[in-house]
């Protein structure tokens, strides 16, 4: 069976991470705090990438699309409508979901590397549109000057990096809780089954395309919320926030951290952002070199590729939801094929059975 750290260890780690995240702004300088807030935001997008890639089996380079849609929607609301964070977040979610819904016909019929290319195109088109649609997005200069955000009506304005960070942390943590819960419900079960074997899903009467469409829209909403948060954090948005580099980093961060669940996706994204933003501060100009090295090492470290990453994530995710699942079942059969061993294609033009 998949080796799985015991549940309390995971929980202890999660609690420690949360405590550290809450305490962080009192331990570091304001600049680092704002970087942390940005890391949280990108971590949320990273989670949406990880769900699509690992759970639904649609590797994406296009989550910058709904991310950008949410960011510009949030920025426009902040500039012209109201400074209430909740409104901006909801608008961002709606914009992200809408954007993702528009891309559904493009992506749900494709698989694997084709999805990668389609979403790459979607991401590139988003950036192009963002830098060209000057009247709405401010072009490549971006949008700035939105007033500081108030989380809800009646609350004070968030005018320090620390407050903005904590606001981001609360929203991100709440959404992650929702994501974890949803993935443990039967909905998560269905998505994983789709990724494992679609033909079998169809043969059992499941509409795979519909499930995938729902996953695309839901993750689009997540990325949209992250976009609105990004605007609250940096009070500025420009096409540079959504370039190819960002989507590549997000995908690779999800892959790097993915072995250890949704939390791992955040950790992976944080690692990638840390290498890009912090280490490069210490070693100026060498960020691409370090990142490149990180990717190469990651490629060698995952012995069975991304499939193992998602399987690992799934095993961890299920740890809490399945009483009795940790019970070891004695292996009765000595003829178990090695897990993940290459298996011949099932569907062939001719029967390949052995004759009598």
């Amino acid at each position, binding site marked *: *069976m*998949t080796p799985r750290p015991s549940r309390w260890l995971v929980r202890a780690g999660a609690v420690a991470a949360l405590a550290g995240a809450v305490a962080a702004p009192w331990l570091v300088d304001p600049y680092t705090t704002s970087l942390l807030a940005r890391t949280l935001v990108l971590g949320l997008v990273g989670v949406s990438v990880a769900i699509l890639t690992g759970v639904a089996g649609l590797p994406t380079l296009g989550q910058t699309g709904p991310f950008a849609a949410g960011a510009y929607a949030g920025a426009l609301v902040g500039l012209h409508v109201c400074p209430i964070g909740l409104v901006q977040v909801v608008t961002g979610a709606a914009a992200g979901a809408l954007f993702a819904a528009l891309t559904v016909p493009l992506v749900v019929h494709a698989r694997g590397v084709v999805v990668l290319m389609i979403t790459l195109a979607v991401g590139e088109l988003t950036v192009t549109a963002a830098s060209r649609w000057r009247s709405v997005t401010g072009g490549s200069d971006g949008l700035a000057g939105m007033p500081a955000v108030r989380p809800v009506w009646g609350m004070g304005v968030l005018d320090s990096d620390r407050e903005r960070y904590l606001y981001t942390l609360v929203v991100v943590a709440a959404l992650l809780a929702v994501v974890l819960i949803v993935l443990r419900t*039967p*909905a998560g*079960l*269905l998505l*994983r*089954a789709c*990724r*494992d*074997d679609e*033909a*079998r*899903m*169809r*043969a*059992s*009467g*499941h*509409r795979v395309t519909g499930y995938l469409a729902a996953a695309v829209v839901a993750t689009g909403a997540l990325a949209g919320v992250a976009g609105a948060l990004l605007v609250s954090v940096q009070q500025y948005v420009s096409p540079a926030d959504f370039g190819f580099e960002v989507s590549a980093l997000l995908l690779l961060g999800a892959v790097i951290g993915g072995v250890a669940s949704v939390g791992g996706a955040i950790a992976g994204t944080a690692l990638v952002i840390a290498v890009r933003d912090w280490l490069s501060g210490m070693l100026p100009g060498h960020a691409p070199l370090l990142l490149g090295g990180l990717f190469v090492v990651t490629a060698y470290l995952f012995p069975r590729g991304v499939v193992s990453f*998602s*399987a690992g994530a*799934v*095993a961890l995710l299920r740890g809490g939801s*399945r009483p*009795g*699942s940790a*019970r070891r*079942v004695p292996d*009765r*059969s000595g*003829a*178990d*094929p090695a*897990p*993940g061993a290459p*298996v*011949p294609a*099932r*569907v*062939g*033009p*001719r*029967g*390949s*059975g*052995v*004759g*009598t």
Partner: protein
Amino acid sequence: MTGSASTRVGPATSGAPALLTATALTRRYGSLTAVAGVDLRVAAGERHALIGPNGAGKTTLLDLVGGAVRADGGRIDYAGRDVTRLGPVRRARLGIARTHQRPAVWSSLTARENVEVAAWRQAGGLRGVRTPGRFRSRLREPALALLDRVGLADVAARTAAHLSHGQRRQLEIAMALAGRPRLLLLDEPAAGLSGAEVQRLVTLLATLSREVAVLLVEHRLDLVYALCDTVTVLRDGRLVASGTPAEIRHSPAVRRAYAEAVR
């Protein structure tokens, strides 16, 4: 509805109403015609076997009936309606379930979850199982009962990737049954099973409700003759003969078909 170039020995269960009727069914893969104008009739509740040498088109015929591949010609009627143009999802919802030569199971799900997801539609979809109580009563308990029936009760919590080949095969049968099918398509259900597992399979099929018709591809003729009402012999994508086990056993056409294939 007689196969043009075939020896029609005589249908065994012509009295029962037809559940599945395939007419002049054809499927090509490039220059190879895997199934060439095959007529097939499966009565409600019938146990119908497809036999024939390798490459006879047996699996392709199951694929055509299940909807995994589209027919290039001919038509398929099932339960009184033309399903030729329907995809696998619609056919599954109409009650056609199948297993595969290489068991198709969701490898990262546990055995129990596999059966639950397979029973999903039948239990009423997401709405039907939205509360934990309903989930338990409509999916979990029936799933465990089915796993018990195919002999997988003690590995219910194991991920499918870690089951043996024979266990996966039995799991897929449980999954197929979970959808409460009216037509069960089994592709070599006994291949790769141990002696005890084969015995369990035979018991399972023998005690299966007669509300379910079974169309199975199997190479073990002893099982075919023991279990089935009707046997259809295919060769090179064509129907050679169809009849009761006794008729088929003594049919010279069948012997010739096998002898030429083995030669």
